[in-house]
């Protein structure tokens, strides 16, 4: 049986459903474990992706990884789970390594595919410049799944939500305040990303990038220098020293395509590059290229998309 830990603190993300889809492909018996105050109706939605059971501890809020480690390890042992699945995001990165030590279970961090026939699991290495296959030597294994690595799959299952309490002790972490950008799509989960670089000349020119992103229902990203100079917030910085993403579509505007930038985005399924310089290295990594001035091309691309959306709705 597979145990999936999910954070339901701030609503349930697409990557949570991806983790359950992944678990259901490993085994027909899937149990979801979570904490906090999400409603029973919200939690039973995991049944759509193949979970038979959702266990929820209402006493803890999920901010202390030490408490969660106790909760997760206790249920992993009680349920005799062979595999534990996490999302490889802020949640999984805080908890899964702890659980790995507690259970002495080898961890595959950032899985991007289901296990191979020989049991090894594919992950990105060298920040996306290559991939590797990890083999786990312990009897129990932990897999944290990178967002957008497997398509969601409906697997309608009758699902029971059960309240539990575990002996987790007090939280050692005191939350003072929480800042959330409103309504924005979290970058690692976005299926379409519109990204721009120094070619845009200044932060005042990002309006057209945001408009294009809105038309596409996309998240926005940027190159490192743009975040460093403060034109855009740090969390938008993608690349080898920023966020690594793998959307279906990545549109790069006025970004040269330095090796460190490409490392974080070359897992994208389709790449479109807009650049004035026909020699820009990014064209070598692109599927579609447009040689042209962003200030001319982007409004035109946006207009074409608006027209397309109107015709196809």
């Amino acid at each position, binding site marked *: 049986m597979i145990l999936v830990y999910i954070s339901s603190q*701030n609503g349930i993300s697409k990557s949570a459903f991806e983790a359950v889809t992944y678990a259901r492909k490993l085994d027909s018996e899937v149990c979801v474990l979570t904490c906090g105050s999400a409603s029973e109706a919200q939690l039973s939605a995991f049944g759509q992706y193949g979970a038979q059971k959702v266990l929820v501890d209402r006493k803890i809020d999920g901010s202390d*990884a*030490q408490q969660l480690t106790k909760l997760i390890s206790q249920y992993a042992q009680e349920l005799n789970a062979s595999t534990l699945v996490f999302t490889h995001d*802020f*949640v999984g*990165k*805080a908890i*899964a*390594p702890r*659980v*790995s*030590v507690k259970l002495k279970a080898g*961890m595959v*961090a*950032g899985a991007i595919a289901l296990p191979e026939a020989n049991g*090894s699991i594919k992950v990105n*290495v*060298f*920040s996306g*410049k*290559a*991939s590797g*296959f*990890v*083999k786990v*030597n312990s009897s129990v294994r932990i897999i944290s799944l990178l967002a957008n690595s497997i398509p969601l799959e409906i697997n309608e299952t009758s699902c029971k939500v059960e309240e539990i309490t575990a002996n987790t002790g007090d939280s*050692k*972490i*005191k939350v*003072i305040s*929480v*800042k959330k*950008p409103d309504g*924005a799509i*979290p970058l690692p989960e976005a299926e379409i990303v519109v990204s721009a670089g120094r070619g845009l000349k200044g932060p005042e020119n990002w309006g057209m990038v945001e408009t294009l992103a809105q038309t596409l229902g996309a998240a926005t990203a940027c190159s490192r220098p743009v975040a460093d100079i403060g034109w855009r917030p740090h969390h938008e910085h993608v690349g*080898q*020293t*920023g966020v690594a993403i793998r959307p279906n*579509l990545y549109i790069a505007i006025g970004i040269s395509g330095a*090796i*460190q930038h490409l*490392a974080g985005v070359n897992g994208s399924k*389709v*790449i*479109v*590059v807009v650049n004035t310089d026909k020699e820009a290295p990014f064209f070598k*990594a692109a*599927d*579609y*290229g*447009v040689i042209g*001035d962003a200030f001319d*091309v982007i409004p*035109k*691309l946006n*207009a*074409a*998309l608006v*027209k*397309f959306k109107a015709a196809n709705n």
Partner: protein
Amino acid sequence: MNILVCISKSPDTTSKIAFSNDNTQFDDNGVQYIVNPYDEWYALVRALELKETVGGQVTIITVGTTTDEAIMRKALAIGADEAVRIDADPKDAYYTAMQIAHYAQSNGFDLVLTGKETINYNGSQVGGMIAEALDAPFVSLATKLEVNGTTIQLEREIVGGLELIEVALPVVVSCAKGMAEQRIPNMRGIMAARTKPLQIIAPQAIEELTNFIQFSAASSKASVKMIDADNMDELVALLHSEAKVI
């Protein structure tokens, strides 16, 4: 304040990545190693800033072989007080973390800092593993850290936002962008680094829980299709019917 900073080596960011022995090993022929950027820019520099404001000692530790001493000297040149090398090949995250935890346990630290992840294996695992072994709180992906007596305040990334939290020392923190700014070592630092203590310690016997059995270089794209800047309708049509992404 006694601070331990975990550093790791990683290939220079401009390195082309290749493998040898039937794709089972990273081929580091001609590869220049650097201090993993997250460890250097954020964890180490923030540790030095804390030492400058509240006093204390900054020790860097790495699990590695003699070839890693160059990056250790670099960290000492930036300002760390002393260096420790656990003399072993860092086999997997668990092996590495257990070595560091053992050293931290026997030497007593208020704060253990790691980078957000290494840019070679990108696991983001070592910090959390050390914390569990030390039975200490772990704050992952912190973007700010201020000391306030025996507690620290941190800002950390959460899904779609930021959280401001407080936690009592000792604690393990993984450091992300925002924490500090890169420091370039000066001549005096480089000279001083030559004589700073670099201790070599034999490893504990720890098993490996995982191993890489194979690597493959990222597949390169077929050739790019160029589209005329005045024909964005064509690009949209291709994204829809050929690439099927909109």
